[in-house]
Every structure is written in C-alpha cells, then in structure tokens.
C-alpha cells in the first residue's frame, strides 16, 4: 500500500479535543465529523485538505480522549496517512483498528515541512520527501497489525477469523 500527497503539518501534543471538539460528538456521521476536523487549531484545514494528503506532527499525536471520532474525522477528510514522532496509545490503536495508516519516524516528523510532497510505502515504512529530496525509514507495523490493516481494520480481521 502506498500514499502520495501534500503535507499538512502540526506540532507537539495535538489532542483529540482539537482534532474533533466534543461539541460535535452528538453525531457519529463521518462526513459531519470531517467537516469540523482540526477546526480549533486550524480553521483553514477543511478548505486546504485534498484527498491523499499526508498529516505530519511531532510528539504524542492524538493525546486525550478515546474518541474514535478523531481518526475517523481525519480519514474521512481525505488524509491518507499520519506521520509523527510518537502517537498517544489510544489514538494509535484506534487508527490501526479503523484502518488509518500511521507511521512513527522521528527524523521525518522533524524535517518534513508544510506543503512538501511525499510518498509513503506502508509495507516497507519508506517515506520519500520529493520536495526536499530526502528519504526516511519508519518502523513498519508488526505482522499482526499489518494483518488488521490489510483487512481494512479490526472488524474485517475478526470477520475473517471468526469464519
């Protein structure tokens, strides 16, 4: 699996309350959630995001609440992959479970800038920054999580394994 797109970049400790504020959690409709994605830290996000774009951030991305609405809103907004130095653990498992590709890579998180064009290969963990002509290698998922990703999330995985 591969992703290609323009980078939208954020800093440290992007929490789930800014990814999707609680005032919109009285719905679980993905499109409605996506229309408010990131609005409290970046009111321009919904206008500038294009299908396939890659979100890059620094430490502890997705900290805070367990709301799966956060990775759902990001995925539904068109983001193909999130790269960060580290992820908060509930966000990490939610992303895996709903099939939103995420990669941890310190160097990439630091060096990639807003607007750069990048290509990401999920199987090998290779990230190519075309704008800066640089390449990084992130730790690919362990086999069990790759299986979940390939089944498009945990539900697909369980369905396969319950048969």
């Amino acid at each position, binding site marked *: 699996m591969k992703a290609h797109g323009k980078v939208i970049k954020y800093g440290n400790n992007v*929490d789930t309350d800014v990814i999707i504020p*609680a005032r919109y959690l009285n719905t679980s409709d993905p499109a409605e959630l996506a229309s408010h994605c990131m609005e409290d830290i970046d009111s321009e996000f919904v206008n500038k995001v294009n299908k396939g774009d890659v979100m890059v951030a620094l430490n502890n991305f997705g*900290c805070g*609440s367990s*709301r799966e609405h956060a990775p*759902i809103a990001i995925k539904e907004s068109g983001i193909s992959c999130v790269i960060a130095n580290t992820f908060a653990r509930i966000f990490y498992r939610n992303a895996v479970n709903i099939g939103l590709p995420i990669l941890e890579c310190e160097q990439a998180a630091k060096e990639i800038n807003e607007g750069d064009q990048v290509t990401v290969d999920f199987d090998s963990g290779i990230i190519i920054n075309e704008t800066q002509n640089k390449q990084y290698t992130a730790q690919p998922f362990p086999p069990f999580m790759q299986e979940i990703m390939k089944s498009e999330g945990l*539900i697909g995985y369980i369905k396969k394994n319950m048969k």
Partner: protein
Amino acid sequence: MKMTMTQKILAKHANLEFVKPGQLIMADLDMVLGNDITTPVAVKEFRKIGVEKVFDKEKIAIVPDHFCPNKDIKSAEQVKFIREFAKGMEVSNFFEVGQMGIEHALLPEKGLVTAGDVVIGADSHTCTYGALGAFSTGVGSTDMASGMATGKAWFKIPEAIKFTLNNKLSKNVSGKDLILHIIGMIGVDGALYKSMEFVGEGIKTLSIDDRFTIANMAIEAGAKNGIFPVDDITLEYIKEHSTKPYEVFEADEDAIYSKEIIIDLSKIKMTVSFPHLPDNTRTIDKVGNIKIDQSVIGSCTNGRIQDMREAAEVFKGRKVHPEVRCIIFPATQKIWKQAMNEGLFDIFIDAGAAISTPTCGPCLGGHMGILAKGERAVSTTNRNFVGRMGHPESEVYLASPIVAAASAILGRIGSPDEL
C-alpha cells in the same frame, strides 16, 4: 518470574505463564464499557461483524453520562439508539438517568470491577479502576465492538514505571495534587505506552478515593494504565461494593521497571495545571493573580464523597465570590444522596453554589457550564486542552476540590490558607 503487576494480570488473562514487554497478546475481558458518545460508533461496528449476540450480557456496561440527561435532540437520538441495542442484546448493565452516574465512579460503586480484572472501556479514563488492583485501559469504539462480540482484546505488553511513595500528604494536599505533580514532572507523554505502578509505604495513607483520582489521570501522562497494589483499604471497598470473585496479583520482587521514581508525599504542595496541558503545573504559591469566572467541582476525577466533603469543609460558613459561578457535580446518585444526607448540600447552597445531577457536563464542554470567549474556570476535572470547556479562547485550570472551593470564594485561584 520478573513480571510487574500489570504483566501478571495480562499473562493470566491470555493463558500464558510469562509475558514480556512488547509482546502482542489476546486477553480475555471481564468487562467491556461504553458511554453515550463512543457506544453508537461501537454498535455500528458491532453490526458489521454479523454476530447475533454479545459474548456475555453480564460483562458489558453502557453508561449514558456525557451529554445526559440528553442536552439536545441529537444526543437524545444517540442514547435512544444505544438503549435499543442494550435492550435487544439484554445487556444487564445499562444505566438510565436516575440510576446512572459518571461511568468511572459508577462501575466500582456498582461492584462491576474488582481486583485482578481486565477491563476495556471506550473512554480514556477507564484506567481509573487501577485503584482497585485491576488492569483497565481506555480503547476506542471498534475495540469495544470487537470486545462485545468476542470477549477479547489485543494488547501490547507494556513496560512499567515504578512510583515509590513514602511518608504522608500534608493537610489540604490530596491525591489530585500528587497526580498533577507527577504529570508536571514526567510530562503528558512521560509514561507513553507504559504502566504506572504505585508502590511504597505511603500508599496506606491514601484513601481509596485518592487512589481513584490518581489512577484516573494516568492517561494524562500518556500511560496505558495506572495500578495500585491491593491492601486492606482496597479489600474493604471491594467487599462493601461487590460480590464478584476477585484475585490479588503482586509484582514479582525481581520485576523489571523502565524507571523508578521515589516521591516523598510530605513534600507535595497544592498544585494547579495551567492551560493548555495538564503538565503545565505550578505549585499554589507560584500561581499569581488568576481571576476566575467559574469553579467546577466534580467529574470522574473528583466527584466522589471525599471530594464533596473536602469542598464542603472549605465552603462552611463562607460565600462564593459574587463574580464566580460555582457548580458542583456529585458523580453518582449514591454519592448525591450521601452528600445530601450528610448536610453538605446545605453548606453548598448557603454558600451560593449550584448542585447538578450526575453528568460529565462541562468537563468536556458538553453542557451545564460552558465557558464563553475569554472566560476562565478552575476545575477539578482532568483536561485543560484548548476549547475543552467551551470557547476555543476560554481557559481551564486544573486543581483539587479544596483549591477549587477556595478559589470560588476568593474569586481567583488560591488556597484555603488565604481565607
């Protein structure tokens, strides 16, 4: 065998003799929890799996507490959707308004969680039950769905940080101050992917309510769980509330920790977290002049009876500052009644504070005390992120019930020593 308390509980639930950090396991679940925000998503995912029944109708708890009593039509629709699901699946632990409370105060009180359990909840503060010597952790809705279908969840075995607590907290200093101090010290990602295991002589001086508060905020340091050893105080609580069998796990003497932090409880001061992260802490003497518009006392962190008593002690014979709105949220119906019977409500009302039915309310900016642009609140809740209690340009300062009560009287953040 070199296992921490958390590792031992997980090994047992995965039917393994030994587990090591980083290992991926499938563990059996003793309880699967969801609320009115996360359960609707979980139900939709559950339906996609295509099973007819939940794995065990006694081992699922659904608590509509966030936007309940329903704050608007959309919230009402969400609760209706999950109520019908619970009914259809004959889920025994669905708590309607009138019986419900904030989930993490309610489950232990109802005896649904006990020592040695493995619990997942589609709510990040599920880590609260570590106070009872259980492994409990927050997950998302998809995990809840698969947990309800299979009775299992996948986990990566965590490393642990050992917190050795010595001595005793001083007067007016509570479990909340201790956990804010710890988060300030290690940072909001200081325990990322790890367990926080609390040990040491000082633990026996911490009440069960203090332990709930401390375990509750483990997630604010990024931890997978926070856990306390089981002692007489734990067993007394468990026996009073639960008829479920329990099992006491202890860390091996040669257990390996990624780090040990030794804390002298007598040195901890009243502590406040400034916006917009819980690790942005200052001790009360360094707070300066922070004027407030609202004081919130309650939540899954500090809405228990001890919190109510401590706040009442400060309010006794005093008045809320005329420019402050003070709102008090006992966390469950039982705590509500207890506080009322103990005469605490007379004290609150005479002081000019409002008392609400149990709900998450303003803690997550839901309802019952939302902040306008530029307003400031001191709150006994657990998060002070941008926009957490309302307008993106409002501010939340986290503190203990004692500090929140004293601040409500002073009209600025301060301690009872200034009254």
